[in-house]
């Protein structure tokens, strides 16, 4: 499926393991940006918005490198975004049971391939920035995507691809 921001109820039809592309504006946020948004408010319209766990390298008005960071660091920091209407989180490595529950009936977690900073940058255009004082890696950058290839890691029905794979791996490790 080709998704375009702002997202709506089409995300409810996605199933963990679906491969999708995403186009339109997304907002980068790491640990510091989440804390700042909780305190000072979300600096973009959160309804249907997409948050990308990413600390990009920006040069002037150009996105140089923008691969995903580890989403698990935001496990305790994402509820307020989903409560405000955010429909999708993008990152790598998956998120925990709390976020899986928070996504239920509302949105999805989309996995982007870790380390693919050059691929990401080739499909991105910089549109703006909020909280620039947090520094390059932690600021909230508005970035326009052109068909970024993603996988549905957690769907809106409680299915979490990562925890399923991890459970099967635990089982395999226990076998002689």
């Amino acid at each position, binding site marked *: 499926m080709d998704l375009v921001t702002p997202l709506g109820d089409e995300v409810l039809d996605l199933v963990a393991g679906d491969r999708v592309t995403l186009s339109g504006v997304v907002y980068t946020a790491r640990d510091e940006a989440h804390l700042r948004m909780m305190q000072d408010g979300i600096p973009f319209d959160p309804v249907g918005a997409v948050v990308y766990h990413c600390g990009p390298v920006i040069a002037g008005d150009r996105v140089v490198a923008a691969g995903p960071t580890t989403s698990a660091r935001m496990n305790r920091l994402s509820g307020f975004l989903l409560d405000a209407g955010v429909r999708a989180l993008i990152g790598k490595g998956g998120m925990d049971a709390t976020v899986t529950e928070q996504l239920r009936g509302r949105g999805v977690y989309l996995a982007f391939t870790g380390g*693919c900073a050059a691929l990401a940058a080739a499909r991105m255009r910089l549109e703006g920035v909020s909280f620039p004082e947090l520094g390059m890696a932690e600021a909230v950058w508005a970035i326009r995507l052109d068909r970024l290839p993603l996988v549905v890691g957690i769907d809106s029905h409680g299915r979490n691809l*990562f925890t399923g794979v991890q459970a099967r791996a635990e089982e395999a490790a226990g076998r002689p």
Partner: protein
Amino acid sequence: MDPSLSLRIADATARAFARAVTTLPPDVEAALAKALDAETDPVARGELENILENIELARRSGLPLCQDTGVPVVYVTLPPSVPLEQGLYAAVADGVRRATTAVPLRPNVVDPLTRHNSGDNTGEGMPAVHVRPGDRLSVTVLPKGAGAENMSRVEMLLPSEVARIPEVVVRCVLEAGARPCPPVVLGVGIGGTFDLAAALAKEALLEPIDAMDPFETSLCEAVNRLGLGPMGLGGATTALAVKVRRAACHTASLPVAVNVQCWANRHATEYVEVA
């Protein structure tokens, strides 16, 4: 050290970093392509396709493969005609600073306690420089990203626990899950001391990964039976390769170190002509 030699060493260091962070060694790219050929899971195939496209784009554009351009680990060999002097370390650090501006590399190096970032990827004990004698003056760089490095471990097994070595390797990868950006390359150091095992594990990552001995193959197969797959999303290839290095050890100990490396198994060597 002769100023022109230290300049050439700094140049070689900067060139090696530029190449390492933008271009993967051919054996690593070939291993990823082979993993894609062997993969039937559509999600895993998609991840490997993204990785291979990313490698191609980075090579063509001269931009870093990954925004985590790592901390600088450097291996130098000195020929008999070049004595080991303090100036060597300064020259390598100078090369790191130059690469940080020129490539650019992300400034990743901070004070361990204050977390103050030096801004130029150098600091106390950084770059980590390892020197040994050789035929030529060579500078090999291994930019080490944090995601995989943080999942590495050293275990001090009992001498009676040789049979537990595969379990140590497999549990390391299992507990790391998606975090080190699999498919990984594993450097395993067996024997020596607590610190030597870790050093051997890291050096093992410099070895070509297109060949494994039967022990390495058996470890690699055990890891791949986990089915974690690319990015922990499931699939046939969790590890591209396992490389083992050994050292003799105390009769009462059996150190085992596992250095985890993400798919971007970056390293590059440059040579310096010695007049």
